[in-house]
């Protein structure tokens, strides 16, 4: 069994004949905190989905802990945080019910909820500071709070690797900071994190590696890119009027992005 979390070789994805990923090579080792950066439409969300096998590759191959997604059996090792909380057809679900569903990969069919399950769910709710809303319907929460529910759901599963699709998008500053603190704790515990981000903000100090995706290819892979010039000012809001005119340099793919 390989301990490499993800290993994609020449990964290609097309939708209706239109290429979205054009040959991605990406290996994520345990303990890494990888930020996938890129403009809208660069393919970064498709890349995370392809890493998990949610979007099938049309070419190349990808492995999760050494197995192709179709034959992967250790799903409890993965904690996926999708972009948005799906609330389905209107049947209410409490925050606790949704967070508890993060344990599903660890639960066998006929076993009832164990004390370990309950403790993990309580811990996850505590970590995102939603313990007091545990019995409220998720539909009644704000966007930022729903984002925290999604993160708590992944935390509840106690996975080795977290895969987060834009966890900071459309989230208030407090929640961003909370997410950064939570991630810092995970990193200290040696967890692996792959996240798609539009801008790093408070996450920046914990990112160990930045991968910039541009037009379905890896444009930069290495040290996380640092904001420069105006963008580096504290309190700078990323509203890029210059989005249409990217400056030269390897990092413009993610900096020159419309909000």
């Amino acid at each position, binding site marked *: 069994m390989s301990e490499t979390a993800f290993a994609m070789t020449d990964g290609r994805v097309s939708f209706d004949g239109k290429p979205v990923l054009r040959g991605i090579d990406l290996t994520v080792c345990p303990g890494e905190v990888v930020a996938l950066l890129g403009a809208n439409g660069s393919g970064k969300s498709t890349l995370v989905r392809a890493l998990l096998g949610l979007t099938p590759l049309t070419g190349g191959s990808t492995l999760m802990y050494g197995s192709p997604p179709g034959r992967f059996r250790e799903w*409890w090792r993965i904690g996926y945080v999708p972009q948005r909380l*799906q609330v389905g*057809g209107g049947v*209410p679900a*409490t925050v606790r019910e949704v967070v508890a*569903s993060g344990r599903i*990969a660890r639960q066998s069919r006929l076993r009832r909820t164990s004390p370990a399950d309950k403790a993990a769910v309580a811990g996850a709710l505590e970590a995102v500071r939603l313990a007091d809303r545990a*019995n409220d*319907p998720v539909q*009644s929460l704000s966007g930022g709070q729903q984002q925290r529910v999604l993160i708590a759901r992944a935390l509840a599963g106690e996975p080795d690797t977290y895969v987060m699709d834009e966890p900071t998008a459309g989230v208030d500053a407090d929640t961003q900071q909370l997410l950064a603190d939570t991630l810092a704790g995970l990193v200290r515990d040696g967890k692996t994190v792959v996240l798609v981000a539009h801008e790093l903000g408070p996450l920046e100090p914990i990112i160990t590696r930045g991968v910039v995706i541009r037009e379905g290819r890896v444009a930069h892979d290495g040290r996380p890119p640092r904001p420069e010039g105006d963008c580096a000012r504290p309190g700078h809001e990323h509203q890029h009027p210059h989005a249409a005119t990217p400056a030269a340099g390897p990092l413009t793919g993610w900096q020159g992005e419309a909000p």
Partner: protein
Amino acid sequence: MIMDLLQEQLFQLALVAALLVGLCAPAVGTFIVQRRLALLGDGIGHVALTGVALGFLTGTTPVLTAVIVSVVGAVAIELVRARGRTSGDVALALLFYGGIAGGVMLMGIAPGGSNAKLNSYLFGAIASVTVQDIWVIAALAVAVIGVVVVFGRELFVLCQDEEMARASGLPVRFLSLLIAVTAALTVVIAMRVVGLLLVSALMVIPVATSQQLTRGFRTTMGLAMLFGVLASVGGLLASTYSAKVPPGAAIVLLALAGFVLALGVGKFVRRGRTQESTVSERPKMRVEEVA
């Protein structure tokens, strides 16, 4: 009066059937509504009519042939749903019409077929439930509740967010088929009580009622099952008191009355809660189409 009724075998059978239907239909319905497949029950109901007619044509118990045909139909609907986007809609519609037309046609040429029999399946005939029917219904009910108990956790994740289910390693295709087949079994259970054209009402209305009042999935399902039993037993009683009252319609109208009541109560309950937006909790009513 009720004590006298309970002595009568016909009423006993009808009561057992009503109880089982009231319990099963909303339990499955909660998952189906959550999955935005509120009309699935209608679709299966239409297809099941062909199954009933096949039973008459071949001299087999119609309930059994209805089980077989509606399960096949449910699987077909699920496969179309999983595959298609826009064309799935039309494919489903074709299946519905084919089911009804096939049923009416086969019933017409079947030796024992008559309009009265057709009607009893379309609109329910709880008073004519036989002991044999009850055994089949009971077995199906056990299967349905068993599925909910054993697979409930997984079905919750699936119906909430299919992609999340996939990313949790759940057998998404199997579970999707399971919920479709369970819905088919429920349709057959409910067929004798409320009729194929109103089957879906008992899967959807108690859930829509319940979600006006609840905050969680589990409680929604529990309360929906309670409402389902109240409506089906209440409708049965109403039809026993007056022979003019058709039980199937009485059950559905009672359930609808409950929904309207809950709508009012729900508004009141929600006003008591602080800082909660009610927008997302508004009922998603759909016009139930009787094709």
